[in-house]
């Protein structure tokens, strides 16, 4: 009897790229539902539009590059980029914002570098930064959470969808009546104006830890992150040092002057902290590749997030911090190689 002769190992691989990507998407589902409960259909619309743009550009650029598309489109990596980008976008933006963001993320950050596995920078964050620099007005159209403000007249789903695709608001509303600043924004402006943090936190948009609603989305993102840790999809190094890098200076400065600096809990549950720690900084392609390197990389992002939030021009700093640390990865990798077994 004759047999085929592939080389060892013969054991089947335990996991595959599409399985990893689907786990990441699955881990985001609870947070998506929570976000939708608090902020309306914006996130789902954003996800649908970024995903469509991402998949379409991925396929078209691959075709232009003369590369086969069947595995690349089915590996779900473009969908993960789209999902992360849609979490970063305000939930109330015209349809062309997510379309441009998805297309830029895939072409500029991923395919121009050679596609899956070749990007130096996190594609979702490149897409986000491109949008916030190009369209600062639209990119600050955040909504208040459900029941966040008693004076607030919430939009119906139909009115929301109508705005996204036509730009038309109901006659009795203008854009300023619909959108609200985010808790991070309010804190930043308030502190700049010299108001004590405790007074700012007393506002109706604030909850137990961070912003009302936002803190629950953050909780569900953290839950998804724990699922990724449990399944071995991500490892503990980056989330742990990211959160420590943010929380240690936050705690120290809060203890020194609690009126001028937000408490560490607020930092933990506000903005993109959880998304950054568990889903964005852990994106393997653009992150450091060694265990020790990942500790440094995560800590660097955490510290930068704190610095940018506290002294920077933008209210949050996760995207810029991740991209800055992406740039240091080759250096980190070079100096953190583990000692090989049996070598000095």
């Amino acid at each position, binding site marked *: 009897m004759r*047999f085929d002769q592939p080389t*060892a190992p*013969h054991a089947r691989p335990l996991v595959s*790229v599409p399985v990893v990507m689907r786990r990441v998407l699955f881990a985001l589902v609870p947070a998506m539902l929570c976000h939708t409960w608090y902020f309306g259909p914006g996130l789902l619309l954003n996800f649908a539009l970024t995903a469509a743009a991402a998949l379409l550009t991925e396929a078209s650029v691959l075709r232009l590059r003369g590369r086969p598309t069947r595995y690349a489109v089915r590996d779900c990596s473009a969908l993960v980029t789209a999902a992360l980008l849609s979490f970063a976008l305000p939930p109330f933006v015209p349809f062309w914002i997510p379309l441009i963001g998805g297309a830029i993320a895939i072409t500029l950050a991923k395919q121009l570098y050679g596609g899956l596995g070749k990007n130096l920078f996190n594609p979702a964050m490149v897409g986000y930064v491109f949008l916030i620099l190009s369209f600062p007005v639209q990119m600050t159209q955040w909504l208040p959470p459900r029941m966040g403000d008693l004076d607030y007249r919430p939009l119906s789903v139909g009115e929301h969808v109508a705005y996204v695709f036509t730009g038309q608001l109901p006659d009795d509303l203008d854009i300023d009546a619909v959108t609200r600043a985010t808790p991070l924004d309010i804190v930043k402006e308030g502190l700049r104006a010299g108001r004590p943090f405790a007074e700012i936190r007393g506002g109706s948009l604030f909850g137990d830890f961070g912003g009302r609603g936002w803190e629950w989305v953050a909780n569900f993102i953290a839950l998804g992150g724990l699922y990724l840790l449990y399944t071995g999809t991500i490892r503990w190094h980056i989330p742990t040092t990211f959160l420590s890098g943010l929380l240690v200076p936050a705690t120290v400065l809060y203890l020194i002057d609690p009126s001028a600096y937000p408490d560490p809990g607020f930092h933990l549950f506000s903005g993109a902290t959880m998304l950054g720690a568990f889903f964005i900084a852990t994106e393997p*392609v653009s992150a450091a*590749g060694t265990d020790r390197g990942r500790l440094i990389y995560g800590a660097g992002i955490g510290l930068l997030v704190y610095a940018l939030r506290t002294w920077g021009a933008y209210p949050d700093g996760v995207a810029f911090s991740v991209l800055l640390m992406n740039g240091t990865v080759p250096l980190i990798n070079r100096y953190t190689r583990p000692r090989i*077994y049996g070598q000095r």
Partner: protein
Amino acid sequence: MVDYVFERHLSGGILLPANKTASTAGPIQRGFVPTKLVLALRQHRGNAAEPVVAVGERVLKGQTVATAGAAPSAAVHAGSSGWVRSIEERPVLGGHGVQPSLCVVIETDGRDERVPAAAAPSWPTDHVAQRAAIRAGGIVGLGGAVYPTADKLTTPVPVETLIVNGAECEPYISCDDMLMRENAADVVSGTLLLTEVLGAPRAIIAIERDKPQAMEAIEIAAHAANDQRLKLAEVPTIYPAGGEKQLVELLTGEEVPSGRYPGEFGYVCQNVGTAYAVQRLRAEREPLIARVVTVTGGGVKKPQNVEVPIGTPIAELIAYCGGYNEGVARLIAGGSMMGYSLPDDDTPITKATNCIIAALAEEVRTEMHEWPCIRCGDCAMVCPSRLLPQDLLVAAVASDFAALHTLGLQDCIECGCCDVICPSQIMLTERFRIAKRSVAVRQPIPVTSPGQD
């Protein structure tokens, strides 16, 4: 009476589905005599044995058919009585795959007639003569490397510890487990004999945690032997805990430097099967003519462990185990991680063959698509040599010899952990094997970047 219990003291490694229970359900089948024996004269690194029989001659069970050549080498013996039909080149699985090798082909006569016990010399008392007897007995390391045992018993420095390897970490293989369960006293006696020959102050029999029955049997035998030098160690069930350097790391916390052997640092590793073979030689004057082989996989009707005469054609062994099941897709000599796939079942069982897996398609990797590397680093996490396979891959594709050296290509033990954990399903180990061969001859490395289709 287990002396040491190790939790985890190993770099990397991976927990794999064991697939061992199918072959451990029943006892070792003994007394199997095939119709033909194909005895390869070179079954190990080093020098081939030199035939001392002529075509047409009748040989008896245990008779020397080839004596050891210049060291390192080991003699070859007939596993049953019969007639020498030819001395010719035949395809045999060696260290570099299936290659033609000079073989003594014996047609057995079914009488299984032994060399008279009186004809065998008595067991010598001094260590030099004992080593010579082990060499003449054709005994080699039965863990897979088949290095001639006598040559491994001569070390450049005094031996501190003899490590007897009963870890058997690779999936599917259970021959050492079953041997320890059934012949624990002989394994212990053989261990003490090797300890004696080495002059070692300490011997450790290391067994993986997933073999409680083997451990219990060895415990009882060790208790009966009552020798202070003998220690038992339970090691974690993790692949590749049974690798020689990995086991040294596990048991001593020490690392064998790159490119060196444990023997240079006072550690000698022997497989439990080797210890058993040495004891058989001393007690029964029986040279190495048979070994326990695990025959398993979904493609064979009766998975079991069989004591197989060396030289048995694999086809006859499979027939003895009930034949193939429908859908058998691959024949592997060794385990699923480091075993060789065989082109056909005509090749013989050698001293190195610890396991034959007749695998169904769903048991083995058949889908050969690779995604691009996503740099997740899981390969580095499982690498027992603490290499960065993802970086080695890039250096290999670029034929960057300097980077390959810095990144430690030469320290890759080809265990296959990185392949199995890789979500991009990249065939890393095969690329590293090709890279090693190319580096040796300073040629560009003919490997491609994954994810090109």
